[in-house]
Protein backbone atom coordinates (compact mmCIF):
# COMPACT_ATOMS: atom_id res chain seq x y z
CA UNK A 1 0.00 0.00 0.00
CA UNK A 2 2.75 2.42 0.98
CA UNK A 3 4.86 1.04 -1.86
CA UNK A 4 2.12 1.99 -4.32
CA UNK A 5 2.07 5.52 -2.94
CA UNK A 6 5.86 5.81 -3.27
CA UNK A 7 5.63 4.60 -6.87
CA UNK A 8 3.01 7.23 -7.68
CA UNK A 9 5.23 9.91 -6.15
CA UNK A 10 8.16 8.83 -8.33
CA UNK A 11 6.01 8.85 -11.47
CA UNK A 12 4.86 12.36 -10.58
CA UNK A 13 8.48 13.44 -10.16
CA UNK A 14 9.25 12.20 -13.65
CA UNK A 15 6.63 14.70 -14.86
CA UNK A 16 8.72 17.41 -13.17
CA UNK A 17 11.59 16.33 -15.40
CA UNK A 18 9.24 16.39 -18.38
CA UNK A 19 8.32 19.97 -17.51
CA UNK A 20 11.99 20.92 -17.52
CA UNK A 21 12.52 19.16 -20.85
CA UNK A 22 9.67 21.09 -22.48
CA UNK A 23 10.21 24.55 -20.95
CA UNK A 24 13.97 24.53 -20.39
CA UNK A 25 15.55 27.81 -21.55
CA UNK A 26 18.74 26.30 -22.91
CA UNK A 27 19.86 22.95 -24.29
CA UNK A 28 21.81 22.06 -21.15
CA UNK A 29 18.65 22.25 -19.04
CA UNK A 30 17.00 19.67 -21.24
CA UNK A 31 20.00 17.39 -20.98
CA UNK A 32 20.08 17.69 -17.21
CA UNK A 33 16.42 16.77 -17.07
CA UNK A 34 16.95 13.73 -19.29
CA UNK A 35 19.86 12.61 -17.08
CA UNK A 36 17.77 12.96 -13.92
CA UNK A 37 14.89 11.11 -15.57
CA UNK A 38 17.22 8.21 -16.33
CA UNK A 39 18.17 7.98 -12.66
CA UNK A 40 14.53 8.17 -11.57
CA UNK A 41 13.60 5.27 -13.84
CA UNK A 42 16.06 3.07 -11.93
CA UNK A 43 14.17 3.81 -8.72
CA UNK A 44 10.84 3.18 -10.46
CA UNK A 45 12.14 -0.22 -11.63
CA UNK A 46 13.25 -1.00 -8.07
CA UNK A 47 9.79 -0.29 -6.70
CA UNK A 48 8.05 -2.15 -9.53
CA UNK A 49 9.93 -5.31 -8.53
CA UNK A 50 8.19 -5.25 -5.16
CA UNK A 51 4.74 -4.63 -6.64
CA UNK A 52 4.72 -6.95 -9.62
CA UNK A 53 7.23 -9.56 -8.40
CA UNK A 54 9.00 -9.78 -11.76
CA UNK A 55 12.67 -10.13 -10.95
CA UNK A 56 14.08 -9.32 -14.40
CA UNK A 57 13.37 -5.61 -13.88
CA UNK A 58 16.65 -5.17 -11.97
CA UNK A 59 18.49 -6.11 -15.18
CA UNK A 60 16.58 -3.38 -16.99
CA UNK A 61 17.62 -0.94 -14.25
CA UNK A 62 21.32 -1.79 -14.61
CA UNK A 63 21.11 -1.53 -18.41
CA UNK A 64 19.31 1.81 -18.08
CA UNK A 65 22.13 3.19 -15.90
CA UNK A 66 24.71 2.36 -18.58
CA UNK A 67 22.64 3.64 -21.52
CA UNK A 68 21.85 6.90 -19.72
CA UNK A 69 25.55 7.35 -18.93
CA UNK A 70 26.58 6.88 -22.56
CA UNK A 71 23.85 9.18 -23.81
CA UNK A 72 24.72 11.99 -21.42
CA UNK A 73 28.42 11.73 -22.26
CA UNK A 74 27.63 11.92 -25.96
CA UNK A 75 25.49 15.04 -25.52
CA UNK A 76 28.16 16.68 -23.35
CA UNK A 77 30.73 15.97 -26.03
CA UNK A 78 28.42 17.54 -28.57
CA UNK A 79 28.16 20.67 -26.41
CA UNK A 80 31.92 21.21 -26.28
CA UNK A 81 31.94 21.43 -30.04
CA UNK A 82 34.23 18.51 -30.79
CA UNK A 83 33.65 15.60 -33.11
CA UNK A 84 32.56 12.37 -31.51
CA UNK A 85 35.73 10.44 -32.36
CA UNK A 86 38.23 12.93 -30.93
Amino acid at each position, binding site marked *: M*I*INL*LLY*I*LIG*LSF*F*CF*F*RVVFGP*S*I*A*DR*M*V*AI*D*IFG*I*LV*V*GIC*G*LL*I*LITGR*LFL*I*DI*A*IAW*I*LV*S*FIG*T*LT*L*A*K*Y*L*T*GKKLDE
Partner: protein
Amino acid sequence: MSNTISLIFFIIGVVFDLFGCIGLIRLPDVYNRLQSATKSVTLGTCSILFGLFIKFGFSAIGIKALVAIPLLFLASTVAAHALVRGSYKYGIKLWDKTVIDDYKDVQK
Protein backbone atom coordinates in the same frame (compact mmCIF):
# COMPACT_ATOMS: atom_id res chain seq x y z
CA MET B 1 11.78 -6.96 10.55
CA SER B 2 13.62 -6.67 7.25
CA ASN B 3 10.39 -5.46 5.65
CA THR B 4 10.24 -2.52 8.05
CA ILE B 5 13.89 -1.56 7.58
CA SER B 6 13.64 -1.75 3.79
CA LEU B 7 10.46 0.35 3.88
CA ILE B 8 12.33 3.02 5.84
CA PHE B 9 15.05 3.03 3.19
CA PHE B 10 12.44 3.35 0.42
CA ILE B 11 10.81 6.32 2.14
CA ILE B 12 14.18 8.04 2.66
CA GLY B 13 15.01 7.49 -1.01
CA VAL B 14 11.73 8.90 -2.29
CA VAL B 15 12.07 11.95 -0.03
CA PHE B 16 15.55 12.65 -1.42
CA ASP B 17 14.22 12.24 -4.96
CA LEU B 18 11.42 14.68 -4.16
CA PHE B 19 13.86 17.31 -2.90
CA GLY B 20 16.09 16.85 -5.94
CA CYS B 21 13.24 17.28 -8.39
CA ILE B 22 11.93 20.35 -6.55
CA GLY B 23 15.43 21.78 -6.93
CA LEU B 24 15.31 20.91 -10.62
CA ILE B 25 12.18 23.03 -10.99
CA ARG B 26 12.91 25.91 -8.63
CA LEU B 27 16.59 26.81 -8.92
CA PRO B 28 17.55 29.63 -11.30
CA ASP B 29 20.56 28.34 -13.23
CA VAL B 30 21.63 25.21 -15.09
CA TYR B 31 24.63 24.76 -12.80
CA ASN B 32 22.53 25.14 -9.67
CA ARG B 33 19.95 22.75 -11.07
CA LEU B 34 22.51 20.11 -11.82
CA GLN B 35 24.16 20.62 -8.43
CA SER B 36 20.88 20.00 -6.65
CA ALA B 37 19.38 17.35 -8.83
CA THR B 38 22.28 15.02 -9.52
CA LYS B 39 23.51 14.64 -5.98
CA SER B 40 20.26 14.18 -4.14
CA VAL B 41 18.53 12.09 -6.81
CA THR B 42 21.55 9.79 -6.98
CA LEU B 43 21.55 9.35 -3.23
CA GLY B 44 17.82 8.70 -3.19
CA THR B 45 17.98 6.06 -5.89
CA CYS B 46 20.93 4.39 -4.18
CA SER B 47 18.88 4.30 -0.99
CA ILE B 48 16.04 2.58 -2.87
CA LEU B 49 18.47 0.00 -4.26
CA PHE B 50 19.95 -0.59 -0.81
CA GLY B 51 16.47 -1.14 0.59
CA LEU B 52 15.96 -3.71 -2.17
CA PHE B 53 19.14 -5.46 -1.04
CA ILE B 54 17.94 -5.54 2.57
CA LYS B 55 14.55 -6.89 1.48
CA PHE B 56 15.87 -9.75 -0.64
CA GLY B 57 19.13 -10.54 1.16
CA PHE B 58 21.95 -12.40 -0.53
CA SER B 59 19.91 -13.79 -3.40
CA ALA B 60 20.52 -13.06 -7.08
CA ILE B 61 18.41 -9.91 -7.15
CA GLY B 62 19.90 -8.57 -3.91
CA ILE B 63 23.43 -8.94 -5.23
CA LYS B 64 22.43 -7.25 -8.48
CA ALA B 65 20.96 -4.34 -6.57
CA LEU B 66 24.15 -4.10 -4.52
CA VAL B 67 26.26 -4.09 -7.70
CA ALA B 68 24.10 -1.35 -9.22
CA ILE B 69 24.89 1.10 -6.37
CA PRO B 70 28.60 1.87 -7.15
CA LEU B 71 27.78 1.70 -10.86
CA LEU B 72 25.16 4.41 -10.39
CA PHE B 73 27.48 6.55 -8.26
CA LEU B 74 30.31 6.43 -10.81
CA ALA B 75 28.13 6.90 -13.90
CA SER B 76 26.04 9.74 -12.51
CA THR B 77 28.91 11.79 -11.14
CA VAL B 78 31.06 11.43 -14.25
CA ALA B 79 28.12 12.34 -16.48
CA ALA B 80 27.32 15.41 -14.38
CA HIS B 81 30.94 16.58 -14.51
CA ALA B 82 31.10 16.20 -18.29
CA LEU B 83 27.77 18.00 -18.63
CA VAL B 84 28.89 21.01 -16.56
CA ARG B 85 32.17 21.27 -18.44
CA GLY B 86 30.42 20.99 -21.78
CA SER B 87 27.81 23.60 -20.97
CA TYR B 88 30.46 26.01 -19.67
CA LYS B 89 32.45 25.67 -22.86
CA TYR B 90 29.29 26.03 -24.93
CA GLY B 91 28.92 29.48 -23.38
CA ILE B 92 25.83 29.21 -21.23
CA LYS B 93 25.69 32.20 -18.90
CA LEU B 94 25.85 31.90 -15.15
CA TRP B 95 23.10 33.35 -13.00
CA ASP B 96 23.42 37.14 -12.77
CA LYS B 97 23.70 37.05 -8.97
CA THR B 98 26.60 34.61 -9.04
CA VAL B 99 29.33 35.68 -6.64
CA ILE B 100 32.45 33.89 -7.82
CA ASP B 101 33.59 32.09 -10.97
CA ASP B 102 36.89 30.28 -10.46
CA TYR B 103 36.79 28.23 -13.61
CA LYS B 104 37.25 31.32 -15.78
CA ASP B 105 40.65 31.97 -14.20
CA VAL B 106 41.74 28.36 -14.54
CA GLN B 107 41.14 28.32 -18.27
CA LYS B 108 43.57 31.15 -19.03
